[in-house]
């Protein structure tokens, strides 16, 4: 790297997330091992791999839900593993968002749609009912839920609607980084497609960075700029999504891609 290049890259933005040597074990069993990567502002990273390959473990460590055994995670230069829990919890309700595969894990089922969306606003100090209600109405619209459903409980919604509500609830405070674990799992194909469209629009519009875990290569093809392929807790291949999918180098990735083509 020339001096000129170095100056350029310093002037450019620094990574949003810097992950270095991240390892998580469950007793003797490996959850994920020696994971390193950078995520840049506005970038969408896909994580694919078979069941048990460590995708959820990695995501949970990144989002601060699990404590990694080794390694470092820097968010905008701050060490999220070492920071005190209150600071980390504050990040997770302001700068971060987390969309669970099962809406039940990400929604308050006993609270109305409006209350679900408003919760993060109230958590950061919003104390005007009218303002909160207006923001909730606006966000329901953005995820294509009719305003008149604002007082309905999530259990009165379809699976796809619940997932969209979860997204609205997460994005209302304008986070920078969204973690998603199988956000389209368990949904019908047509519902999946609509949700993916919506997600793609929101990610672009808000300039969000995202890390999306999925079994489904079609999902990463549509959403992810870059791809990491995991097997037995390790990253076996990574690169630009199209490159990895069109010209897989690792035997396991080749298997993964070919099994999709057979479907």
């Amino acid at each position: 790297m020339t001096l000129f290049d170095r100056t350029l890259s310093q002037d450019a933005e620094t990574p949003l997330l810097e992950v270095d040597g991240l390892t998580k074990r469950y007793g003797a069993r490996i959850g994920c091992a020696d994971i390193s990567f950078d995520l840049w502002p506005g970038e969408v990273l896909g994580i694919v791999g078979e069941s048990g390959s460590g995708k959820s473990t990695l995501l949970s460590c990144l989002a601060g839900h699990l404590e990694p055994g080794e390694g470092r995670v820097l968010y905008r230069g701050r060490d999220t593993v070492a920071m005190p829990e209150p600071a980390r919890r504050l990040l997770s309700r302001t700068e971060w968002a987390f969309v669970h595969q099962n809406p039940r894990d990400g929604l308050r089922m006993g609270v109305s749609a409006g209350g679900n969306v408003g919760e993060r606003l109230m958590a950061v100090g919003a104390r005007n009912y009218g303002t909160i209600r207006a923001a909730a109405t606006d966000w329901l619209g953005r995820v294509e839920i009719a305003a008149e459903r604002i007082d309905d409980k999530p259990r009165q919604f379809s699976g796809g609607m619940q997932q969209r509500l979860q997204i609205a609830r997460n994005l209302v405070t304008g986070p920078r980084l969204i973690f998603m674990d199988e956000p389209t799992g368990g949904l019908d194909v047509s519902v999946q497609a609509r949700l993916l469209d919506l997600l793609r629009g929101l990610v672009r519009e808000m300039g969000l960075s995202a890390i999306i875990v999925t079994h489904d290569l079609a999902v990463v093809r549509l959403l992810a700029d870059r791809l990491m392929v995991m097997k037995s807790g390790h990253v076996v291949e990574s690169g630009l999504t199209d490159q990895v999918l069109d010209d897989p180098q690792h035997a396991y990735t080749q298997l993964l891609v070919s099994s999709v083509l057979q479907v």
Partner: protein
Amino acid sequence: MTDQAYNFAYLDEATKRMIRRAILKGLAVPGYQVPFASREMPMPYGWGTGGVQVTAACLAPEDILKVIDQGADDTTNAVSIRKFFERTGGVETTEHTAEATLIQTRHRIPEHPLTEDQILVYQVPIPEPLRFLEPRESETRKMHALQEYGLMHVKLYEDIARHGAIATSYAYPVKVEGRYVMDPSPIPKFDNPKLSGSPAIQLFGAGREQRIYALPPYTEVVSLDFEDHPFEPSKADHACDLCGAAETYLDEVITDDRGGRMFVCSDTDYCTGRQAAGHRGRLSPEDAA
């Protein structure tokens, strides 16, 4: 007659010391729920065994005890607890708020202003104000520790969304000295302003849930609300039909099977006192004076 089979006020001294330590910690950290090892009491949980244990730990032989339930001294619950301490402690009891040194209560704060010489003990069924929306104890404890109280406002938001106004009228959540969010026990929200700045010591005991919390004298207690839906300590829009009081909390009483009804002070001692002093209401007997 004191029943000699028991220690003074039923509980043994070691248990009282344990409870007093919890009370002192509660007073040192106003609004914080202190765990304590609740004892079996010879009465059902619904009767306020938490309050009874706190009372037992505070009671001294020279105390004058008053017990109220929904504002009345003569309900089964109030009478039984009063009798319990007459028997096990031999303490003097009263129905007059002003005469009492220790008042155990369920569902009300007396209308008569309290003084620095008094302790008010509340019976608490569910001490955790966040329980309604977050069932996990590990999580609610963390929320208190980190002052993550957004959820409390979600509850009020739901109220307004459903009813057009904050419909919570009992156990209305409060913030203590700008720090802990607290459930004031199922008192009507009409009583909430009396929690704040009270000269008396206020102690809260939850038996089944094994928690004690406290408000030392002159503690600031603020009822939660929204800027555009401010807290209102509402009451029935009537005066008492027996004593004419316009500023007290009223019970609605059905008087016959043709829809007849009257409004009377829920605080029976206060109402009786006013009537004795010559105050009259809409339904007072003409010749009663």
